[in-house]
């Protein structure tokens, strides 16, 4: 990999004095009277040749200081900068003299960049054309609008043909047409094997345009790597979803899913994952597990993740290639009953002697070409969401369900309501089998209770539910839950609806209960237990103390 710009252990200190006599007093009294401000602290980045590299960071994070040091406008306090090739710094106003005309400025800037008058004469027509300034080119720049100035600045910078172009938020001005033109020009640059360093606080611009990115926060390089990966962690930080410490510790691990091969067969769903994973900490001696987690309830299964040699073409460091590949298969049959309608994420859990943690596997570079849904008992979809892999499990059909009434009676909790599937006729109680599950939300153990289907004309006679005039006479249900067995904990109610006739689907849903006034509002006391029905989320939950 050729390096176009290399900075090593760059540190930049600014001295801040409280009064203007400070520097003089300091020399005279030899006391330290200034505060030191570290604009950059020990930053080392190699900018590879022929790529667009983004530098992300909020205002005042030190990214402009870094640019100034690379371009030679500022000197570093310590560290080295190595630049291979000619370099142009594109800033909205850089090197533009407001007194001179646009035309003269072209030459002026050309001179500053080290070109002779003759060389600039060859380029001047192209520059004027690109700048779209037309006859304004002979007007003094002080009469230009800010957009026109930016156009002139950009036109000069890109047309002098530098090896390295450094762009500092310059595209914020100018109309969208011109911005697009600039983007095209910069893409052309990339194709010619030139290096572009693109500074922005906008992650979208960096993700769209750059292949790699560096994130600088308060003068420190937090991460350097794939632009999408960096963009997503930057976004997590900027939106306040994650703290810097959390991000830093998750950055210890470099990982990516590169291939997904799902399969749905007789024995259920099976998902094969391939990719790489390693710790950038030199002395990491922990073990890894692959974790599949239900994002709603937190229920999870884990499988040990063994690492072997990696054969993909990603730019991993050579010394890591032997021990960073993984290939694992998650089979539904090994974890029966775990996959239910819901959403699942794929994480890695690491365990070391003193610490352990979890992070979602990165899937931002994954090129998913799975268009068909996989059918097992449910419909399974695999997607990339927020640069991570997600498995969506959905019922084949939709159960309409409502709890009309809940009441306590001696040692029993009674539920009464309706449930049916549109289009599936239930003329007798033998047409469907319904089961109620009470699931402990910590241990995920469940108790099942049979549900009695009862005759009701509530659905059949309701034209908004039944416009086709089908027979849903046995849409009512009633169930009783014995309170004697309940142990303290939080519980969730689910329901299985099994069609006994064709098409014979089995559907699993969380129990919906939105008729609040029909449910007990006070906790019920039974023996030494206190049972509280909760429906604030519209789903039926229960706490037992």
């Amino acid at each position, binding site marked *: 990999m050729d390096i176009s710009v290399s900075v090593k252990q760059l540190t930049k200190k*600014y*001295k801040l004095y409280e009064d203007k006599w400070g520097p003089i007093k300091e020399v005279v009294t030899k006391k330290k009277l200034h505060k030191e401000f570290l604009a950059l602290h020990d930053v080392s980045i190699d900018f590879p040749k022929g790529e667009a590299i983004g530098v992300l960071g909020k205002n005042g994070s030190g990214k402009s200081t870094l640019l100034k040091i690379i*371009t*030679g*406008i*500022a*000197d570093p306090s310590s560290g080295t900068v190595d630049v291979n090739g000619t*370099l142009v*710094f594109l*800033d909205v*106003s*850089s*090197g533009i*003299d407001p*007194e*001179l*005309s646009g035309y*003269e400025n072209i*030459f*002026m*800037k050309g*001179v*500053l*960049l*080290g070109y*002779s*008058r003759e060389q600039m004469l060859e380029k001047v027509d192209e520059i004027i054309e690109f700048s779209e300034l037309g006859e304004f080119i002979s007007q*003094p720049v002080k009469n230009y609008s800010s957009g026109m100035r930016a156009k002139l600045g950009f036109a000069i910078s890109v047309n002098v043909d530098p090896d390295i172009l450094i762009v500092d938020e310059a595209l914020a001005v100018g109309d969208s047409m011109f911005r697009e033109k600039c983007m095209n020009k910069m893409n052309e640059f990339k194709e010619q094997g030139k290096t572009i360093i693109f500074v922005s606080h906008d992650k979208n611009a960096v993700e769209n345009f750059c292949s790699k990115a560096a994130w600088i926060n308060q003068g420190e390089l937090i991460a350097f790597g794939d632009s999408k990966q960096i963009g997503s962690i930057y976004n997590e930080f900027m939106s306040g979803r994650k703290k810097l410490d959390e991000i830093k510790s998750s950055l210890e691990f470099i990982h990516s899913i590169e291939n997904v091969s799902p399969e749905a067969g007789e024995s259920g769903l099976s998902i094969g994952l391939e990719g790489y994973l390693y710790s950038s900490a030199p002395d990491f001696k922990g073990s890894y597990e692959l974790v599949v987690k239900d994002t709603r309830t937190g229920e999870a299964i884990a499988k040990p993740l063994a690492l072997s040699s990696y054969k993909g073409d990603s730019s991993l460091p050579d010394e890591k290639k032997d021990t960073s590949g993984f290939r694992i298969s998650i089979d539904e049959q090994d974890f029966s009953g775990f996959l239910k309608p819901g959403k699942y994420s794929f994480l890695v859990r690491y365990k070391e002697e003193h610490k352990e943690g979890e992070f979602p596997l990165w899937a931002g570079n994954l090129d998913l070409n799975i268009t068909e849904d996989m059918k097992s008992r449910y419909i399974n979809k695999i997607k990339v969401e927020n640069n991570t892999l997600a498995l969506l499990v959905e019922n084949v059909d939709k159960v309409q369900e409502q709890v009309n009434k809940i009441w306590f009676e001696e040692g029993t909790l009674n539920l009464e309501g309706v449930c049916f599937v549109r289009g599936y006729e239930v003329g007798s109680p033998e047409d469907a089998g319904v089961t109620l599950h009470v699931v402990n939300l910590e241990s995920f153990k469940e108790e099942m209770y049979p549900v009695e289907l009862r005759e009701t004309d509530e659905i059949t006679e309701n034209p908004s539910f039944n416009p086709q005039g089908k027979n849903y006479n046995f849409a009512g249900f009633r169930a009783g839950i014995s309170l004697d067995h309940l142990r303290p904990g939080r519980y969730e109610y689910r329901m299985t609806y099994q069609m006994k006739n064709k098409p014979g689907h089995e559907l699993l849903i969380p129990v919906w209960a939105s008729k609040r006034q029909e449910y007990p509002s006070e906790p019920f006391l039974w023996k030494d237990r206190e049972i509280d029905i909760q429906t604030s989320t519209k789903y039926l939950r229960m706490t037992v103390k």
Partner: protein
Amino acid sequence: MFDIYKEMWQRRKMVHALSLHEIKREYAGTVLGSIWGLVNPLMRIAVYWFVFQIGSRAGKPVDGAPYIAWLAIGMVSWFFMNDGFRLSSRAFRGKRHIIKNTPFPIAILPAVQIMYSFYTHIILLVVILAVMAFSIDPSWFWLQVVYYDFAGLMLLLGLGAVTAPLVAISKDFGRFLDTVLIFLFWMTPILWNVDNAGRFDKIVKLNPFHYVVQGYRDSILFKSGFWEHPVYTLYFWIVVLILFALGNYMYKRMKPIFLDIM
């Protein structure tokens, strides 16, 4: 030890091009353009001549040369010294909007300002000499002006290199230099003859500007060569050498500081 001068020399084309831009910039927006570069000094020469010759009746011929010619030649060289010194000392501070966002060899900036003053000086010099040729016979000694122009350029380069970083760091120092220049204008024998200084003439002559101003008069009016006062010439060049070394040191030392604070 003389790195920055080496850089100025290596980038002489850039220095030249930028100094021409300076001229354009200076007169951008005016109708008469660089004619103003002539009108202003000529007016000032006329005013001083009127005040001293007519007003105070002090302007007697100096060593046989008419006062107006003596004054004009002295003023021409002084304008060069004055402008070059004033502009080069502000070379960094005045261009900070460019320094702050354009990467280029900023060490050449004092030289740019000096060359800009030099080019305007050449125009004025040619005009004055052309006028003078009517009243004084030109001689080969007129060519010696080239030497004194060179000496003046070198002196300015040294002074510019020393003062420009200081002015960049401290605005107060810039104000101080303005005062020094007014002082120097009156203390350099431009409007008055150094012979009148009597026993102070040694002190007056320590001022290296006097070497250049007097050299101009020697060349145009008195047909006297610089080799005729070798000690003074040696003194002058030693001063220039010291300024060069000091200037190089100043730039190296101050550059990181003024880049940060400007």
